[in-house]
């Protein structure tokens, strides 16, 4: 089996029958890209909405650079950009909100940034499990693009 595990601010792409896992996404957003014909998938565990120069060059850290990098890596594995679909999971608010603390709403900013960047690229978001107040563990099956999601109290798939 080809099992891959990614952590915070990382990304990876894989071919079927690969499985990509990431444990405990909180305010981070899990961006899943999948080409159902080439059976090539990718997952990013992105922390922040937008790359700005001088903020480090880890591609997996930002929503926009993570998506761009995954697309290139997936094409290198034989995916066709026109066939690629997206799923989103994560972007929770882990700690209760306080007045004027923008850090506590970083999750919703990450969701909005992913939606915007994917829409600019013309990539359809076919499923999502975002927001809320719980961490999520994600598992992508690259054979069919199913995304399994676990929280401390629940399990689902999209």
């Amino acid at each position, binding site marked *: 089996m080809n099992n891959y595990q990614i*952590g915070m601010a990382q990304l990876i792409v894989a071919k079927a029958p690969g499985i990509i896992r990431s444990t405990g996404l909180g305010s981070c957003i899990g961006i899943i890209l999948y080409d159902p014909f080439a059976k090539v998938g990718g997952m990013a565990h992105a922390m*922040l909405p937008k790359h700005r120069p001088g903020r480090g060059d880890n591609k997996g850290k930002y929503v926009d650079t993570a998506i761009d990098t995954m697309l290139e890596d997936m094409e290198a594995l034989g995916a066709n950009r026109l066939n690629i679909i997206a799923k989103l999971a994560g972007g929770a608010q882990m700690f209760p909100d306080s007045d004027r603390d923008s850090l506590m709403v970083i999750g919703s900013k990450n969701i909005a940034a992913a939606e915007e960047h994917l829409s600019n690229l013309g990539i359809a978001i076919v499923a999502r499990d975002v927001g809320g107040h719980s961490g999520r563990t994600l598992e992508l099956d690259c054979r069919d693009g199913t995304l399994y999601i676990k929280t401390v109290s629940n399990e689902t798939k999209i």
Partner: protein
Amino acid sequence: MEKLNFNEQDLLTEIGSIGTGHAATAMADILGQKITITVPHVELVSFDRVAEFVGGPGRNLACIYLDVLGDLPGTVLVMFNENTARRLLSSLIPDTELNFFELSHLQQSALMELGNILSGAYLSALADFSQQRMYLSVPRLAVDMAEAMLSVPMAKLGCKSDYALLVQARFFEESSNRGYILFLPDPGAALRMMGIFGVGSDE
């Protein structure tokens, strides 16, 4: 900053020891029992590795989050596993029934107050030692997977750096009971601390 030199490591371990020593005393006073605490572990780590220092990304923990404000800004996290949270709460609130993932308001308040007292002791020792002004935000609480809760302070650090400077200490020695106190200075605060104590980085 991508790597700590020997002097920086030494200074941060010393600072961490002073802070955790005071926090342990405060906790022992509240609980009326002896508290064991480890020598702090100091390391500059990439974001994907931070959860290793609290038992792994999928470990379920109660986490009290506090922003550190003032001259040396950063974040303090006080984390307990379920056994430890049970033990602490039962000594603070006798006969309490506990569902770890659905704590009552009283249980939440008690844990937040405990986090507040520990962090307060930790930081006032550090503030005295460094002669800097430091104060804490109100505590916030979550009970969830370690990695998910760590994403919040990491997002704060991630705006400026690809690494987190971690000053971690562990409470309790028995394997079933685990408590952690993590001090995460902002990158600017870490440099300032080195400056205050005359520990320059190797150029």
